[in-house]
């Protein structure tokens, strides 16, 4: 008796990703966010030449942002499935907060214009905020992953409940 890896996936994944459209959507969304995160991290450059490089100090952050981008791709695809197949409103709060936190924690806040904006708007408090966001970049990214996993669980539950209701 062969035991497929597919059997290990949750019901919602099997249902949604049996359609090629959602697989393509997931890849496209994950890739988009991957580019955005790495642009903010200054690992990808499009001028004067196209370059991607991975210095030692960026390795751990790169792994974490990869996980975040993949989770976002999966999550948004699942949410689109729910929107298309049900009239229920989904709670987007955890999706957006995970996304926003993921983007926020990808920037070197202190080194970029965002830190400058904080400083110029809030003065000394802005310095403290930008330093906090820079110093705790990795924990913030891990928090964003937790938020996204929670959002993933929520939407999985919705799809499962939708299936039970329809069956």
């Amino acid at each position, binding site marked *: 008796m062969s035991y497929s890896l597919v059997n290990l996936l949750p019901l919602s994944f099997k249902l949604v990703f049996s359609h090629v459209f959602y697989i393509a959507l997931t890849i496209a969304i994950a890739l988009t966010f991957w580019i955005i995160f790495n642009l903010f991290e200054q690992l990808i450059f499009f001028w004067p030449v196209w370059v991607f490089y991975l210095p030692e100090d960026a390795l751990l952050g790169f792994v974490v942002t990869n996980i975040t981008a993949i989770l976002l791709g999966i999550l948004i695809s699942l949410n689109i499935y729910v929107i298309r197949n049900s009239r229920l409103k989904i709670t987007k709060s955890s999706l957006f907060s995970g996304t*926003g936190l993921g983007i926020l924690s990808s920037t070197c806040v202190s*080194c970029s214009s965002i830190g400058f904006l904080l400083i110029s708007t809030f003065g000394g408090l802005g310095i403290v905020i930008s330093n906090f966001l820079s110093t705790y970049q990795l924990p913030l990214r891990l928090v964003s992953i937790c938020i996204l996993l929670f959002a993933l669980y929520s939407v999985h539950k919705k799809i499962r409940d939708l299936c039970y209701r329809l069956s």
Partner: protein
Amino acid sequence: MLTSLPKIEDNLLNAVRLLCAIIFFYLIIILSYSYIPLPLILDIDMNNIRLLEYAGAIERQEVIDVRENSSLSLTNLIHQGSPYLGDPSTAPITIIDFSDFQCYLCARYVKATEPLIRDTYIETGKVVLVFKHLPNRGFDSLGASIAAQCANEQGKFWEFHNMLYENQKPIDSGWVNQENLKKFAAKINGLDIKKFNECLDNQKYKDFVEKDIDLGSSFGFQDTPSFVIVNSKDGSNPEVLKGAYPFPSFKAIIDKKLSEVQNSN
């Protein structure tokens, strides 16, 4: 037990909603950046008035195009007392590096890119690297810049520069307070520590660093590191790189400028 589980989920959702609201507020501020007048709200101390004035200057658009600035010739930069690396008598191209010792992207550039630029272009006499201070990331950044100039006074700038970036810690964690700056200096061979400490205590190079900040401000530089690559002779034909660009990006620009200089000769 079963009835308590939905309550836990509700509380979590509320917490997530609150976090979402905070992030949304933050994003609104970023998106409306161009439209918000930027008051100078808090002056923490004299060191940070500079920081806030700089931010105000950016908003009031008191910046000039880097092309209009004629003070970027290598002779001028050396005459000003800026630390430099390379042979100014032969190098046709100058890279001006505006950095902050507390900026981690500057540290990334120093560790990953600068050695390649040094081996490929500086040691072959094609490029001179000039350092300009842009201490705008933390409360202790100005002190670190002043200390680095004190080391430059004794010809030990690059040793001090490398030591700070190798030992970089989180911004304003105290790693570059006065005491630690003196400890770093004490580790450098050949540095007169008494002279260095006196220079640092008197803040001898504060005006010098502030002039560098003014220059960066005049170009509208907010990011660190930021680079201006110019012809050494007259500071003309500037190319600007804002960020910790990797070596291939510098190579593309430097090779282009070298061929332009060669063609014009």
